[in-house]
């Protein structure tokens, strides 16, 4: 597994333009900032619900999504808010979702990173029972294959979810039908508190691809370009009718499973190693500096814009009304029209 960043992005058959590289960095830094701010709001007891930090895994998230086109679909987990931001979700509506407001993507019907924007950005609304979205990605990929429209589905789960039967069911089926789908495992080394060695007995998850007759690769998830190259190859293969691929992207979950979890089960040296020398955001920033694509001024401006963007979005979220309590029974059946109409905005902005 490569541990150093390759300096030559043009080594790839599909080189990324300078603007794309800068945009990837901006997305990673935005996601990092959002992650830190949400954690602070949660710890202050202000934010309702739960948070699931994706810190340290930005390379995986931005790397795989950068290989997708707008019409491709993304099936993420609660850990993958960064991937959803990279796919194009609007931060205003994301934060409104975290605050349970009507302008959130799910109108307050679900919260935190259980988010999705199917009609707009083709992201699936996250569910907890991982890898519950893997079978659904099979259906989307089947639809693209039947339509012959060249679209691709990309599904993410964690290392923990690879122990579940649906992981096998979905990958097996996709392989049998050679569906245009990319299976990504964000191996952050812990399933809540359970380490890799208690989850699977083979050395890598990637080698399980052989059991399904599909390519399986293991990449350094802290190296966004290495992830991108693997994802791009897999996405191109799927788009071209070459069937599914499996990507194991290895990083470390820097924070606990959720906001309440201090993650004392993660060895201190391991965490120190990752935070000091395998920070995907800092390493990519350094890489772009070396390429001459960013400098101190540009980075300062990027950070200023990110913080301003967050403040705007946060103000938008807090100014968005709660759903009207009287609507609680609406939107269960298509025929009541709730989801086709603008929702009521009389719920106020003060929580009861």
């Amino acid at each position: 597994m490569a541990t150093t960043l390759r300096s030559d992005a043009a080594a790839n058959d599909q080189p990324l333009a300078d603007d794309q590289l800068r945009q990837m960095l901006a997305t990673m830094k935005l996601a990092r900032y959002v992650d830190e701010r949400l954690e602070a709001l949660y710890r202050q007891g202000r934010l309702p619900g739960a948070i699931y930090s994706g810190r340290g895994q930005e390379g995986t998230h931005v790397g795989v999504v950068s290989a997708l086109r707008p019409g491709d679909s993304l099936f993420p987990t609660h850990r993958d808010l960064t991937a959803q931001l990279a796919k194009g979700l609007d931060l205003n509506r994301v934060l409104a979702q975290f605050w349970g407001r009507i302008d959130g993507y799910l109108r307050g019907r679900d919260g935190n990173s259980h988010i999705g924007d199917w009609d707009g950005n083709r992201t699936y609304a996250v569910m907890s029972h991982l890898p519950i979205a893997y079978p659904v990605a099979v259906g989307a990929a089947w639809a693209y294959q039947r339509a012959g429209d060249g679209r691709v589905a990309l599904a993410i789960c964690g290392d923990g979810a690879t122990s579940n039967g649906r992981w096998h069911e979905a990958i097996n089926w996709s392989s049998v039908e050679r569906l245009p789908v990319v299976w990504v495992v964000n191996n952050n080394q812990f399933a809540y508190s359970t380490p890799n060695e208690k989850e699977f007995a083979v050395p890598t998850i990637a080698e399980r691809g052989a059991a399904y007759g599909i390519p399986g690769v293991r990449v350094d998830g802290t190296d966004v370009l290495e992830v991108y190259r693997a994802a791009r190859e897999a996405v191109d293969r799927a788009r071209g009718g070459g069937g599914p691929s499996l990507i194991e992207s290895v990083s470390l979950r820097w924070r606990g499973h959720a906001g309440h979890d201090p993650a004392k089960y993660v060895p201190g040296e391991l965490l120190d190693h990752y935070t000091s020398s395998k920070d995907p955001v800092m390493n990519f920033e350094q890489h772009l500096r070396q390429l001459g694509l960013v400098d101190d001024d540009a980075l300062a401006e990027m950070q200023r814009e990110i913080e301003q963007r967050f403040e705007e979005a946060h103000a938008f979220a807090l100014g968005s009304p709660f759903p009207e309590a009287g609507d609680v029974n609406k939107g269960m059946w298509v025929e009541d029209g709730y989801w086709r109409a603008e929702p009521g905005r009389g719920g106020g902005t003060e929580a009861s």
Partner: protein
Amino acid sequence: MATQQVETGAAGHGAEPRGKRSDDGQATYLIAVAEALWEEMERDERVFMLGEDIGVYGGAFKVTEGFLDRFGPERVIDTPIAEETIVGMAVGAAMEGYRPVAEFQYADFMSSGFDEITTVLSRYYYRSGVPMPVVLRGPSGGGVRASNFHSVNPEPWFAYAGGIKIMCPAFPSDAKGLLKSAIRDDNPSLFLEHKALYRRIKEQVPEDPSVLVPISSADVKRAGEDVTIVTYGAMVHKALEAAETLATRGVSVEVVDLRTVYPMDEDTVLRSIEKTSRALVLYESFHFLGIGAEVASVIAERAFEHLDAPVMRLAPPNHPVPFSPPLEDAFLPQVADIEAAVDRLSAW
């Protein structure tokens, strides 16, 4: 409604060919189901079917025999034995604009897809507003000596999940019209075909492909004055048989067939109770928390002032469905049990 015995039960392994309508235009329940599928496949290119052994083999009960030749492997998909992914695949395809109809070889195996049904299919629309025009269908119910892994009535498991319309028709015409409605509905549906009825009853079934039976509408299958039996599925036929006998003894029984168990047509039930003032709730799902438990609650809540007797329930215990014929017969409500229950109600 005319019914007649045409064959013995499918015995759980109905590999016989599907057959055709008889010369006088009558169709079995199984043929009615197949016609509904065929007509909707013809009508709407977005409709497709998936399931285990439905293509080359034509389905374990031969419901889909001949479909592969007509519609091709893109729309008649033989799947791996992977029920969670059968459901998930249907969901994903529906999200991309298709209208999947997934067959479960036996409704028992819906439990193997439980999470994708109850966590994904039943909740996704309420959470996000993305319609889920998915139909899950399969043979349910007992009475054919198929023992406990091929005889389940799973409707309460999934009614509890909410968000899924659940149909349990008793007659071929209702089966055809309801399945067509389910396929055209933008919400998820669970369509349970009672396997004991597949080849056992036949009747005149509409040939006009535009004839539908509305979802969530109960139907009075026999009008009466003294006692109402609220039931669905195969129990409707036992109720009608009991009503016939009871009539000879001067007891007039009304039989209300729910047809759709969720969301339930409460008004038709209540109108009948207002007339008869006595209610027997007869159901093949388990007694405790089965569909009839909810029917009894609705009657108690909304028709208390009309009742002349306590609401009575008749249903199997919450046990596995036993195999040996005397055990299964003792387990399932029988016509004599229904008559005795009506007599007890009438005695109030």
